[in-house]
């Protein structure tokens, strides 16, 4: 059914259609509307049977989900930013134990400095935690990915993180096509756990594993993710047949066939990039776009094939490895025949708008061969230089972020 709704509420409705049995909620922007929506459905009795638990921290949220999943219940939670880091130990634990929990991450920057706006630093910090990570481009895809995520998680006994851009998607009202309960029930079978705590058949779970088997257990986690590389496109195809639209899969290529330069990105920024590329195409510049939906497991073969013929690749990413550069870029380089032709553009950190003008400028610079291998889009170089100068002049130069803010002054009007 078509409806005009907020991204968070669309996700809440989609999750409810998946019949979760235990939902753990802890507020953190920009995720909160999702669990609020679910909480209302549970409290009103529209979503039943389901336990909605208001926990005291994100660490507890994931831990309650671990207990519920280990006891055979379909478990869900949502978080963002600091919350994802606060639960990090339990995030790794859920993956290590092979518990098929589904979690939404409403992507947001990590402090300090504290910042509530969108970038991908939170999810990227957990990229090696053993969860499957799917990134939604639109609200439609966000809600569709959740339906696929439960099936994928439970089939493989691997937790799945559905990442959607905070505010840009979570708080955007737009049209979505909400599936019916019957459609979701037909696509998503009931949860049949591989391991379950049950007095009728007692097992011990979570034992210590030493050097004699640790490698094998970890390798099996890798094998599961490699299996996901086959299941994700197959089930996206099944999803297309059942629901009538393309959602999910490993990657989304756009005008890449004859492209000289391909721009790689994750999430909602792909729309702006496609618009920019369309305009550049009209001017005769042969750009293409590669959207990565599945970041973990890393779809090496699919990406290699998609970027194979391009002369240059630009990876536009909303997070970076401090002291290295691009994180997604480092992954793309492993799938590129010529790693030196992979350029990194860091953009949108802490919610900085990514404009078509800025994108077109940097894309053309890369095409012309005048861009460095690592660019911070729209960086205020003068402000950075002044900050460095202050540090050279005075030993006690004071708190970094605050000095920079004082220098930059009222900034809202400058953002476009």
């Amino acid at each position, binding site marked *: 059914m078509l409806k005009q709704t907020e991204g968070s509420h669309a996700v809440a409705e989609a999750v409810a259609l998946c019949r979760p*049995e*235990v939902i*753990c909620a802890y507020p953190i922007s920009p995720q909160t509307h999702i669990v609020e929506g679910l909480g209302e459905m549970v409290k009103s009795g529209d979503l039943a*049977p*389901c*336990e909605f*638990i*208001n*926990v*005291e*921290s994100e*660490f*507890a949220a*994931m*831990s*309650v*989900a*671990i*207990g*519920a*999943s*280990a*006891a*055979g*219940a379909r*478990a869900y939670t949502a978080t963002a930013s600091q919350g994802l880091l606060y639960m990090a*130990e*339990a995030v790794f*634990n859920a993956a290590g*134990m092979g518990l098929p929990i589904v979690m939404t991450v409403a992507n947001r920057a990590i402090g300090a400095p504290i910042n509530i706006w969108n970038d991908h630093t939170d999810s990227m910090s957990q990229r090696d935690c053993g969860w499957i990570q799917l990134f939604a481009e639109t609200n439609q895809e966000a809600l569709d990915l959740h339906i696929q995520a439960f099936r994928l998680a439970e089939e493989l006994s691997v937790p799945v993180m559905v990442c959607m851009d905070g505010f840009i998607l979570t708080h955007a009202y737009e049209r979505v096509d909400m599936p019916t309960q019957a459609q979701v029930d037909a696509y998503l079978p009931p949860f049949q756990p591989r391991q379950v*705590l*049950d*007095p009728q*058949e*007692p*097992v*011990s*779970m*979570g*034992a*210590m*594993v030493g050097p004699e088997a640790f490698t094998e257990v970890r390798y099996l986690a890798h094998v599961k993710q490699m299996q996901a590389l086959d299941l994700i496109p197959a089930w996206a195809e099944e999803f297309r047949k059942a629901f009538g639209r393309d959602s999910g899969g490993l990657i989304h290529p756009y005008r890449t066939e004859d492209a000289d330069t391909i721009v790689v990105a994750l999430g909602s920024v792909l729309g702006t990039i496609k618009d920019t590329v369309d305009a550049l195409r009209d001017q005769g510049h042969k750009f293409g776009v590669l959207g990565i939906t599945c970041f973990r497991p890393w779809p090496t073969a699919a990406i290699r094939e998609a970027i194979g013929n391009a002369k240059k690749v630009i990876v536009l990413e909303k997070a970076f490895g401090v002291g290295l550069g691009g994180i997604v870029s480092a992954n793309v380089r492993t799938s590129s025949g010529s790693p030196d032709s992979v350029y990194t553009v860091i953009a949108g950190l802490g919610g900085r708008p990514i404009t078509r003008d800025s994108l077109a400028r940097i894309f053309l610079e890369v095409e012309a061969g005048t861009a460095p291998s690592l660019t911070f889009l729209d960086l205020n170089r003068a402000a950075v230089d002044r900050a460095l100068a202050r540090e050279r002049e005075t030993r006690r130069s004071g708190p970094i972020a605050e000095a920079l803010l004082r220098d930059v002054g009222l900034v809202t009007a400058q953002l476009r």
Partner: protein
Amino acid sequence: MSFQPVKFYQTGTFTVGNRLLPDAERSVQSTVRRHNSLNSGHRACQGCGEALGARYAIDAAMEATSGQLIAANATGCLEVFSTPYPETSWQIPWVHSLFGNTAAVATGIAAAMRVKGRSEVRVVAQGGDGGTTDIGFGCLSGMFERNDDVLYICYDNGGYMNTGVQRSSATPPAARTATTMAVGPTPGNPFGQGKDLPAIAMAHNIPYVATATVSELRDLEAKVRRAMEFRGARYLHILVPCPLGWGHDSALTIRMARLAHESGIFPVFEAESGEVTGASKIRRQVPVEEYLRPQKRYAHLFSPKPREDVIRRIQEAADRNIRKYGLLETTP
């Protein structure tokens, strides 16, 4: 207090004394029905109080729930010594997740049972004092506050024994640990620190809070049984001497627990909805020195120079407990 201790002073042990009791009053441990939830063959140290406490408590919980029990376990000695895979001592469904999240994991299990309509299955969470009073405190308080249907059992041996005897917020004053060294003008753990977790649990107004020691088996079992009569959050704090960390002879574990009770160091009581409903009385108060002297963690109180000043402070704390909980038996 519902439980009336049976006195077998002629034997000094309830194991023998059990034979003198009618069937219904015998301890779970003495019956052939006992479940052996934590089975033999585990890797606990000789004289481990925690192994005893866990065996007593979980067997009693199994008896009280007719075998419908799931346990969540914090990282720590109990977890490590019981599950050296491919061996496990647990004869019940058991899960270990992390050090600090056991109460929350138990909440999740309880929620799963509720949503599946399996209300007969009960949930126990258990951990040492580090996993309870320190790193797991946030999750524990959250579980209490929501009144989740979980019995949390803390096996308190007064320190991080699994990592090599470091201080926790349950380490008693003056005790030597690897991080409260017996050196300097005030050797051992400082006075005026630490948490009274049973009191904190009571402050959450949860249905049931109790303390117990491994020296009073029938009292411990009665408290587990009583705890299982309630729905909602329950807390049982069991003192479990640790020969390794306390530095006492491994044959003295039960004796150390008894002395902790009889000196007033460790008050044994129970409370419902935040109010104390009963305390295990002491027939004859034992001077704390009798409790302290066999333990190497207090050796610096006796040599090279006797620290009567410190012992006096410990005695004062024990006396306070006795006054506060009315622990002394009054002559009729």
